């Protein structure tokens, strides 16, 4: 078992800056998801941890040991590749035992570990088959089993579920979580799928344009995004952002009056999740005109506008909704996030907003 310290890593490809001064501490046994859109540098960061890519500057430490100058095989880690990279000329048994064979382990021990890893991922029946005879999901399992068989102190995964169909992905996600919890392996998991990151990880690091935007527990990242990018990327539908004018320390939107965090500003951005908007009376809410209503089963998603600005709202399925109708809404006070309109960075949330609603009440 080992912790990972990523110390001031910068990576450039020619003039393109893939990673810029990235710092990250991953605790022993933690499951960390690197989340971001394609091209944000998350795979590059993973490959730098693995030793498959050399950073332009900065260091990587695993278990307190500086591994920056070590080749992948000496870093004591295992990896699951996006396209699985299962060796086509070896049987499943040979694939799973590959890492141990290369380490020169005893045959009996290899046999035991292979059986264990195969049982964990339910592929015992396929041990003597070749990858070409397996389905995508089975190959995926072989890749994970191969990584687990060596009992790595660190496990790196690069979008391992992205090639599977939706149902299989859901199933594998649950299985991965239970398997890895049991093994207690320090895991770094790269994904662009925010539900995957939220569902699996102990902590999420959101990357954008080579920089870490926010690191935190899934619930924290979801409820209190540190930047407008995080609010827009994490969560589906994304967070709503409304730019409002500040007058006398108050912002006004229809009948809604809120007190943003103190400070001399002309404008401020109010961020609120679609499900954190509740119906209210016309006096204390803002008007919202429904343009499209999508009943999605567990809830109804409404797309419309409020005072000329687009807005998404999620309401319970039993809510009576009609397209074209104007309703009044107000945000749950403790779920508001305030952002700086120029830098797109959070400057306050929760309590300040609550104060604001109280102030508006009198």
């Amino acid at each position, binding site marked *: 078992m080992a912790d990972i310290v990523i110390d001031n890593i910068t990576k450039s490809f020619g003039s393109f800056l893939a990673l810029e001064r990235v710092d990250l501490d991953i605790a022993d046994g933690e499951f960390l998801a690197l989340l971001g859109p394609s091209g944000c540098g998350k795979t590059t960061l993973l490959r730098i941890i*693995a*030793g*498959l890519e050399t950073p332009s500057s900065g260091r990587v430490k695993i278990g307190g040991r500086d591994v920056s100058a070590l*080749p*992948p*095989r000496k870093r004591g*880690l*295992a*990896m699951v*590749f*996006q*396209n699985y*990279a299962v*060796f*086509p*000329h070896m049987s499943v048994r040979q694939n799973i035992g*590959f*890492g141990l064979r*290369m*380490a020169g382990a005893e045959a009996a021990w290899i046999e035991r570990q292979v059986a264990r890893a195969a049982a964990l991922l339910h592929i015992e029946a396929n041990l003597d088959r070749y990858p070409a005879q397996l389905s995508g999901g089975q190959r995926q399992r072989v890749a994970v089993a*191969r990584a687990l068989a*060596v009992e790595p102190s660190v496990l790196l995964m690069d979008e391992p579920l992205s090639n599977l169909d939706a149902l299989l992905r859901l199933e594998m996600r649950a299985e991965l979580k239970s398997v890895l919890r049991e093994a207690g392996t320090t895991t770094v998991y790269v994904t662009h799928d925010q539900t995957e990151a939220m569902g699996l990880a102990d902590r999420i690091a959101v990357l954008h344009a080579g920089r870490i935007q926010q690191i935190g527990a899934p619930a924290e990242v979801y409820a209190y995004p540190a930047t407008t990018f995080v609010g827009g990327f994490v969560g589906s539908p994304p967070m709503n952002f409304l730019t409002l004018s500040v007058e006398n320390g108050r912002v006004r939107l229809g009948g809604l009056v809120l007190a943003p965090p103190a400070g001399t500003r002309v404008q401020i951005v109010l961020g609120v999740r679609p499900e954190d908007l509740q119906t209210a009376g016309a006096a204390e809410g803002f008007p919202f005109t429904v343009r499209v209503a999508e009943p999605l089963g567990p809830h109804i998603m409404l797309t419309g506008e409020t005072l000329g600005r687009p807005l998404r709202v999620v309401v319970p399925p039993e809510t009576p909704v009609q397209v074209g109708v104007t309703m009044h809404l107000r945000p749950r006070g403790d779920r508001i996030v305030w952002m700086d309109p120029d830098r797109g960075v959070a400057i306050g949330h929760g309590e300040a907003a609550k104060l604001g609603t109280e102030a508006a009440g009198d």
Partner: protein
Amino acid sequence: MTLRRAVFITGIVVLCTWTLVPIYLIALAAVGGRTVVNSWPKPFLPPTDVSFATIREFFNISGVWTSAFYSVEAAVLCMAFSILLGVPAGYALARFVFPGATTYRLLILLTRAFPVAILALPLTVGFIRLGLYDTPFGVSLMHTTLALPFAVLVSASLFQAIPRELEEAAWVFGCSPLRAFLRVVLPLALPGIAAVAIFAFVISWNEVFAASVLTVRHKTLTAYLLSVLSESPLHVQFAGGFVLIIPAVLFIFFVRKRLFSMWGIATR
């Protein structure tokens, strides 16, 4: 159907005729004896009295077996050199980014642009100085130059077809780069490399000009036949031609699929 298919079939027939008729005629003359060689029109069907007498006669020409041995020696050496030099070069082209990689790729093909006839004299002088003249080893070096462009380009496309992730997975799971190559890349590329080897062998086996120029007494089979058969009767010449064709045709037949990969067409 109809027109497209008709054109398609005609094309196939023309190409087959183009290739097969000469081979057939040579075979006919080789087994038909003196009468068939001189008869006109040629019989369409093989003569009923197929005799291998001519071929036997051919093998009894003194020096044929010795020169065949030199041919094999040169071809095996050419094959070995092509693999030892061509496969690493192909790997480098496929895996590494280095300045001038594209130019290098083109330059490799350009080595085939110089006619051997122009190089013949300087080569002969050079080989005499180095003590390589009139040895199968010297001939094999020349043949390696001819086979190498194909060896490099075919093996480059072989390695390109093997996902880099497989190698990276091997590195992560405890392999040094060399071990990863031997355990993962090489087994996957082996059928293709075998095809490259056979192709190099055939190039050397068939080559006649350089072999004739660079040897005097230790001639390879093709060079030897060129000098000897010109004085033999026509049907023996055909028998010699036929014996030379067979190995090449067989080799090409076995590796035909692999040769397509030279043009980047995936063969699975």
